[in-house]
């Protein structure tokens, strides 16, 4: 083989890559932000390199994506049976947390970042709900074991991943307020899991 052919061969690959990358852009000129195309060009069937221009554009994380747990609550209902909205936060008012403070998540947590204070009745007897619930999100390793082993579907993994802060002593200790999110949010980010849990719950209620 003549010396230099291998080099030229390598350059051929680079050149073809340049062409491939722009074919899609020209083919779909002006439709870069089309949802369907966006997904297709990112998938296994896309060709060429398609860069997502974060933070203007974002990838939709898959349903199973997990990042920092949150606590699921049922919203308080008004007289019409509709969830009451808190005008200050725009979120539904907390009706009842699903958490019973059983402590399984705190026990299964590998880096031990979950801290739970169980509520007590005025007589001092333990009540099945948390008085305090902390997650140190700097220690959390996003393993998802707490959500996996919660018997009440009360703790789930979130998908909000932009949590950088300037200090870690106040904003990175999530308490009950920061952790509580409505059941509708869980239904929205985990549609498949939600459907399965609902059918299970209905089957249980029938018995």
């Amino acid at each position: 083989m003549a010396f230099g052919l291998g080099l030229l061969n390598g350059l051929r690959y680079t050149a073809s890559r340049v062409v491939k990358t722009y074919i899609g852009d020209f083919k779909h000129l002006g439709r870069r932000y089309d949802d369907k195309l966006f997904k297709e060009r990112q998938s296994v069937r896309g060709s060429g390199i398609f860069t997502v221009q974060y933070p203007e554009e974002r990838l939709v994380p898959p349903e199973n994506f997990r990042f920092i747990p949150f606590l699921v609550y049922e919203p308080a209902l008004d007289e019409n049976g509709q969830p009451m909205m808190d005008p200050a936060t725009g979120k539904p008012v907390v009706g009842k947390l699903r958490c019973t403070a059983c402590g399984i998540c705190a026990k299964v947590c590998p880096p031990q970042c979950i801290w739970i204070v169980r509520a007590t009745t005025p007589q001092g007897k333990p009540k099945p709900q948390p008085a305090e619930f902390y997650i140190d999100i700097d220690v959390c390793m996003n393993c998802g074991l707490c959500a996996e082993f919660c018997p009440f579907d009360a703790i789930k993994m979130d998908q909000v991943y932009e949590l950088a802060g300037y200090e870690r002593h106040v904003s990175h200790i999530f308490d009950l307020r920061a952790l509580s999110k409505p059941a509708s949010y869980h239904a929205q980010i985990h549609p498949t899991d939600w459907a399965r849990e609902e059918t299970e719950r209905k089957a249980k209620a029938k018995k």
Partner: protein
Amino acid sequence: MAANAPAVTETQMPLNDPQVVAEKIKTQYPDAVEAVSAQGIVLKKDRLLDVARYLHDTLAFDYLNNVTSVDWQDHFEVVYHLTSIDRGGAPITLKVNTARDNPSVPSLVPVYRGADFQEREVYDMMGIRFEGHPNLRRILMWEGFEGYPLRKDYKEPYYEEEKKPFGSRWDQGYHVFAEDRNPWHDNVQYPAHLDALAYKPPRESVPVIEATQAATTRLRTDKIILNFGPQHPSTHGVLRLKVTLEGETVRAVEPVLGYLHRNHEKIGERNTYLGNMPFTDRLDYFTSMANNLAYAITVEKMLGIKPPERAEYIRVIMAELTRWQNHAAALGFLYNDLGAFYTPLIYALEERELILDLFEATAGSRMMCNYMRFGGVARDVTDDFIDKCKYLVNERLPRRTDELEAYMAKNELFLARSKNIGILPRDLAINYSTAGPVLRASGVKYDVRRAEPYSIYDRFEFDIPTGTVGDLYDRFMVRIAEMRQSIKILKQALEQIPPGDIMTGKKNYQVRVPKGEMYGRAENPKGELGFYVVSDGSANPYRYHVRAPSFINLTALNQMCVGHKIADMIVILGSIDIVMGEVDR
């Protein structure tokens, strides 16, 4: 010993049973064996070297898998795992006991060079001296560190309790910062006899050429010592190489490790069995699925459970996808080290991204998968997984494998830089306990998937690619060939995957493992990943040791680099394919 060199019959005998091996040892050294059980052969300390020599020379136990130690509170136990490359099968276990005060054991480095770093690690972590070791110094901790972290009486900074879960978390768990919980408050425990004012840190002696000498011999080159790293971008992480140079030629290399050390094993002993699963992701973070698998099969062997069929297939698919993407990334970085700056690396990472997308959609995370459980997998694959995966495996991965090969294998510059560079001959590759592609490139047909099949690898048809010379080029070609074999396995697995359950029994977070010990191993993309787990019947492992392939492969670095130019050393290091998360643990 040379008189009765390995006979053909010896290499074919079933020597995986400790009883049989112990009988053989007794015929030669009647007083050497103290006890024999299914857990291994306990040897007398002063006969260890003789027995090791006998096993190596006569019984063809030529491969030292693993050296570790257990602190039994009243004494230390050093544990060796040995296999024969030709015979394959499960390794045999040798044990040596030593007293707790002033513990020492003869070093096996004269017989197995692969013991070098491993014995240093045992010395560093457990404080057991290895008599006759050529270079017995700390390896993961720094010189001057006080204490031996893996001893049971050692308490680390931020120490809370012996075992997780900690009592302070529930049911009165008010959050406390680790700094406030720390018994030494400023995170430092000073030794009792330390005079802080008079203390001077130990210094490494580096010979320096004097100015007068340099002036008189202006044209003479002399040996200089270069500290390479710890943060050179081509050193694959925070690794320092102490290189002795003569001009531009490497005369000796010594890796200085431990910059990423976090004592994975101590954390593992505090953790519950399940709690270790996400920590194994962080060993070799390129191959977390394969790490999960190796740990899961080890504990499953102790529990005596088997995952259902579908879970087995999912595991194999995940492990092989991992192998493909790891090798693709490794080759990409290898090009980078060669000077093909980043362009081929990005090409290599393109399909890897798609594989990571599949991991993310299934397990929830791209790299920290935490996907395997004891007796199955965490969740079933999504509906479109098999379709996507089939498209990848049938269309994209083979094309990319060919491409990765095509633009390098015939490239004149690549051939000039890789042929006959960094040669590791066959017998040395075995003696240095190298594993994975490094071992196979030297012409050793050894793969744990075939030698001691785990999961369902015995059902698939695949070859073990080997090199002939053991140079850089062979290590490159072996990886390409392994990628093709992975695709072959994936095709079979994706055709055969049955429907059904993904878990045996109920998911349990309080796994209790029966008393005993187990050395489980799997063929990771980097080499043989072993887990040595000792259970005392409680919810936390008593001893948890990781046989890290990248760490042990580094033992052979000096051998490969000597005599080559410094630019070649970078490529040789790249060809071992190390990940510091696993090297330093």
